[in-house]
């Protein structure tokens, strides 16, 4: 049927060729290809940082009382006797098959631990970013409607505060207010969604708020500034006003639509620090995610575990940035409808 349809429109070029040549497909393809070297570089940097730092790792692990034999045995176990390049290659090929090594502390498979904990961190990241972006759009738009007005001043102050408050401080203050003082929400602990959706929601509210408030503040300030800047300097805004469009229509239909691209770029830039913050938030709220696992591993100098988790975090960052890039390509008509075709 599909072929019959194609035959009736004979002059059309091969569907496959048309698909491959479509600007969006091309951009997606290029970005995917670019992600491969970036992932390689990223894992390499991570591995190098963890492996080339000064000091004998084995002796640091075993403490001062360790005998030479003990140190030697551990070095062999960690392949520390091999040259760095070989170690990286061994690690990389193993990692490629999904084997990130095993924990020094309890001999668990790093891959298994990461897979077990990943969904907690991912849902934390996803919910936080969604809340921050949607919150920023609403607040910034309301602010930009009347710059310098009372609402704008209040929002600007809140977002200045948000930008200046470290995640761990905000988390602790949230715990102090909502758990200790008001006893509304649990301070610590995690309830899986499958056990109790309500319990899960209760355990996630404070962590998500803590993660999203600082980045919400950054998004909000940047978006507000961009909206106001466009409103005063862009000619298409004048065109829209000259049509007789009302203030909200100009702001939402025209300006916001163009500011979204700046916001998307910013989301990409903040991805790294957001993912880094999972370590802090998960350990404060006792969520069993990879962030908390990372802190534990660092505490116990569990090298394979640290390396595995960091690499997974880096991969998440790269993939999140890829998603952001793709979203940009899909939303921006200047990429979507390339005039050169």
């Amino acid at each position, binding site marked *: 049927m599909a072929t019959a349809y194609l035959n009736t429109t004979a002059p059309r070029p091969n569907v496959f060729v048309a698909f491959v040549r479509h600007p969006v497909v091309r951009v997606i393809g290029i970005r995917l290809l670019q992600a491969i070297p970036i992932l390689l570089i990223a894992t390499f940097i991570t591995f190098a940082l963890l492996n080339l730092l000064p000091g004998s790792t084995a002796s640091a692990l075993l403490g001062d009382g360790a005998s030479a034999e003990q140190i030697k045995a551990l070095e062999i176990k960690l392949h520390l006797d091999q040259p760095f390049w070989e170690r990286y290659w061994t690690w990389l090929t193993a990692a490629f098959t999904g084997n990130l090594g095993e924990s020094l502390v309890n001999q668990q498979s790093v891959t298994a631990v990461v897979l077990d904990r990943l969904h907690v961190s991912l849902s934390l990241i996803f919910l936080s970013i969604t809340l921050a972006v949607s919150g920023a759009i609403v607040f910034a738009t309301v602010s930009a409607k009347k710059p310098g007005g009372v609402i704008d001043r209040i929002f600007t102050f809140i977002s200045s505060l948000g930008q200046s408050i470290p995640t761990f401080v905000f988390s602790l203050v949230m715990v102090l207010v909502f758990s200790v003082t008001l006893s509304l929400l649990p301070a610590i602990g995690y309830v899986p969604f499958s056990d109790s959706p309500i319990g899960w929601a209760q355990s996630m509210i404070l962590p998500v708020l803590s993660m999203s408030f600082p980045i919400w503040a950054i998004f909000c300030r940047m978006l507000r500034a961009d909206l106001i800047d466009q409103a005063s300097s862009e*000619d298409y805004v004048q065109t829209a006003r*000259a049509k007789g469009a009302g203030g909200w*229509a100009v702001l939402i239909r025209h300006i916001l639509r163009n500011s979204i691209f700046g916001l998307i770029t910013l989301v990409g830039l903040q991805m790294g620090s957001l993912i880094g913050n999972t370590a802090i938030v998960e350990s404060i709220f006792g969520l069993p995610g990879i962030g908390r696992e990372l802190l534990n591993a660092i505490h116990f100098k569990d090298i394979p575990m640290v390396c595995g988790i960091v690499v997974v975090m880096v991969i998440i960052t790269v993939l999140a940035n890829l998603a952001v890039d793709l979203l940009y390509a899909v939303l921006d008509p200047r990429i979507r409808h390339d005039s050169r075709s």
Partner: protein
Amino acid sequence: MTTRTTVVASEGAPDPMATTAPVLEVEHLRVVFRQGEKTTYAVNDVSLSVPLGRTLAVIGESGSGKSVMSRALMGLLPTTATITGSVRLLGQEILGLPENDLRQRRGKDMAMIFQDPTRSLNPTMKIGTQIAENIRIHEKDVSRKEAIARAVELLRVVRVPAPDRRVEEYPHQLSGGMRQRVMIAIALACQPKLLIADEATTALDVTTQAQVMDLLLDLQQQFGMSMILISHDMGIAATYADDVAVMYAGDVVERAPVTELFGHVRMPYTRMLLDAVPRLDRPAHALIPVTAARPPDLSKAATSCRFAARCPRVQDDCLQTHPPLEEHEDKHAWACFHPIPLERTSA
């Protein structure tokens, strides 16, 4: 304003529409910007009128206040601007109208085209949607589909090839000339009575400029609009306008029908401007008679002639009193105590 009369056609076939009430009447329009400690007198006491179906060119250098004036007419100035005077559109005062009421008139009774067609269209919105938006703002009962259909029609009117395909495209897919045609289509969407073209062809190449200007003039006749051409180009005024007003430092300094103005320049500033324009009919390597430029100080209200410092005909009284714009001859007004005598200006 008893001295001012409506400018009527002075040549060719008498225009029957010109005798009706003017589409736009501007009286004593002033625009003052106050920002922090800074005051700028951008437009001082401008009075103009545009009869139905005629084209007024407002000519001036950058900083002469012509763009500020046009935006004041549309109500598009920022809140730092204080606007006083009177602007009557189709007999109704629009200055001081609440923003919501003024909004109803913008895009419907009066429309505007801007200088840079690359920047004045929304890059993320389809062309059809941008035209349809103007229709749907003012005609609430029109469906989206109908509005798009009308957008196709409008694109055909402004001679954009393949209009039914173009409505689905985005501004970056069009050339500069085509974008400006789309801007004109947006402006014409509700058949306004007044169209203000603010340097609408300045960013275009000369052949594209001629195409767009010809189109504008055709459409003006077809739709029976009045037009204000804001430009720095004397050639545009001479070739396309019926009446010309020359602005300098926020004042209209000379105003007349086009043949009268170019035939008998009376204001020394206009003369200098006209002489400075490069033209084909001047020998190569000729020097241009201009005096040293000194931008006028717009931070104070005028107490003397603002052109006095550069004027070859300056006398003592020019430095003491601000010469008002007066209609010294039939339909020809100038703001000068010592105008160029007639015999010397006729070519």
